């Protein structure tokens, strides 16, 4: 469980706090999507949870560990983090060394490392690049390696900061499916910062960050069907909702509730059948 209580954070030399009295509880095994405008503080919140910025004392606990200097090592054993910019992530001279680095840090025995590296690289389709230098990869290849590095750790908590933003359509789908499997099989807690409606819809809960606080915490269906909220924070609705609203624009009386693609398809089927 991750507990954030009354967290206020301000960057040095800035005149305004980014986060202001923010509270949030993330139960173990939950998939939480974090959404909000550019600059709303999503990455800052994620870094604070992982202890990658000076976290104010007694504001965040991760599985009962206070996030502070004294507990950083223990904390990092539990958290896998994929940065928004993969360039900030790499430490190894080669792709495999990079993935190995995190495992060494966690004192994974040498014999156990190789299969984990292999599996993680295979999961993101980067096996052929294991001897390449991370700086000499394409953008999407970098993101894949960064994801592999976090998956190899088999963390209890996985924080993804726009981790799939540069993957090709099928690559993204593969990664998301894999995450869903791990999430379900191993009660992995996922915090996914994203602007992508498909990723938002996959989450158990959505936290909407605005003006330094959690403006709303609810299921994707509730958040994405709240027109006022969607307008206010500029969320993008899933395809089915966009189509529903566009149909309405063309004078079709549409249902008001949250519709998945399947539900919309069924609704269209009934409507068109009565007209045939």
């Amino acid at each position, binding site marked *: 469980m991750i507990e954030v209580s009354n967290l206020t954070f301000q960057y040095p030399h800035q005149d305004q706090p980014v986060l202001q009295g923010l509270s949030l509880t993330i139960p173990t095994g939950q998939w939480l999507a974090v959404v909000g*405008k550019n600059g709303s503080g999503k990455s800052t919140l994620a870094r604070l949870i992982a202890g990658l910025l000076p976290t104010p004392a007694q504001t965040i606990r991760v599985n009962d560990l206070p996030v502070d200097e004294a507990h950083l090592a223990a904390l990092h054993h539990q958290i896998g983090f994929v940065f928004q*910019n993969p360039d900030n992530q790499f430490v190894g001279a080669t792709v495999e060394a990079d993935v190995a680095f995190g495992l060494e840090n966690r004192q994974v025995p040498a014999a156990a490392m190789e299969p984990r590296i292999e599996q993680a690289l295979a999961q993101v389709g980067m096996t052929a690049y294991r001897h390449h230098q991370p700086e000499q990869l*394409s953008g999407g290849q970098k993101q*894949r390696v960064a994801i592999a590095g976090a998956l190899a750790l088999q963390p209890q908590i996985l924080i993804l900061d*726009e981790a799939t933003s540069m993957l090709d359509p099928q*690559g993204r789908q593969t990664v998301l499916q894999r995450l869903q499997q791990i999430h379900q099989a191993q009660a992995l807690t996922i915090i996914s910062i994203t602007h992508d409606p498909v990723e938002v819809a996959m989450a158990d809960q959505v936290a909407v960050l605005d003006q330094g606080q959690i403006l709303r915490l609810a299921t994707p269906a509730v958040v994405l069907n709240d027109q006022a909220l969607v307008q206010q924070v500029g*969320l993008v609705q899933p395809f089915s909702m966009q189509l529903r609203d566009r149909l309405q624009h063309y004078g079709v009386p549409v249902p008001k509730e949250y519709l998945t693609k399947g539900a919309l398809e069924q609704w269209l089927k009934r409507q068109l059948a009565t007209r045939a």
Partner: protein
Amino acid sequence: MVEAAVSYQGVTFRYHEAGAAALQDFTATVPKGRLTAVIGHTGSGKSTLMQLTDGLLTPTAGQLEVLGQVITPRTKNKALHQLHRQVGFVFQFPEHQLFAETVLADVMFGPLNLGQTPAQAKQAAHQALVQLGVGEALWQRSPFELSGGQQRRVAIAGVLAMRPQLLILDEPTAGVDPDGQRELLALVERLKGQGLTILLITHQMEQVAQLADTVLVLAHGQLQFSGQPRALFAQPEFLTTQQLALPAAVAFAKQLQTAGISQFNQLPLTLDELAHALARQLKGDHHEQ
């Protein structure tokens, strides 16, 4: 025939002499005043192609012609100065492009470099920053003390402030919030309307369907397809082999057809086309599409 802004003539590029070719015998043209989308799987060579187009790399073999400037394996760096001034390139990672002490100075750099007075450069920068929704509160900040989306907006503003003749956008909406994406795409559409030639790399098929006049599909450094979006998205099996996908509206329309729920004379390409076609059917207007 529309005049070509860029033509690639058998371009091959290798990062390392011994390594695989990032681009292989690539031949295509980019029509002037149009928007050409460049798509393809992770690592297919899109960003490499754009670096060649901006003269940041020179081909290993073959040649290309960009806005009248011929670039061959023997072209010297200093011959490309003029080209750098005419081509605006927004990198895939905006961090690689930001460098100045403040956001404002960063965006002013391009115009100043083109010989504008400080006052003119400032005005161009102000305008571009406002267009990209970068609030004045950030203008004196270091570009490295910004969020990811803010950095990308500043990088795009810096390129637009140069008023390039050829605009290259390498995944410009990655990391930009939904409102920002909508505004950016509207801006791209306006720039296209003003006659700018635009190369857009994207993994979002909806952007291709909505904005592109022409699409180039790359795989493993080779051209796989060159043509109109409608022709491309009529080939779902081909897209699958390319690690690509149908735009959501096309996929949904096909699904409705397969399930026997609805029929379309011509598959709708965008959400609006789909909604329009469905609305007509729902209102009992069966004969039109």
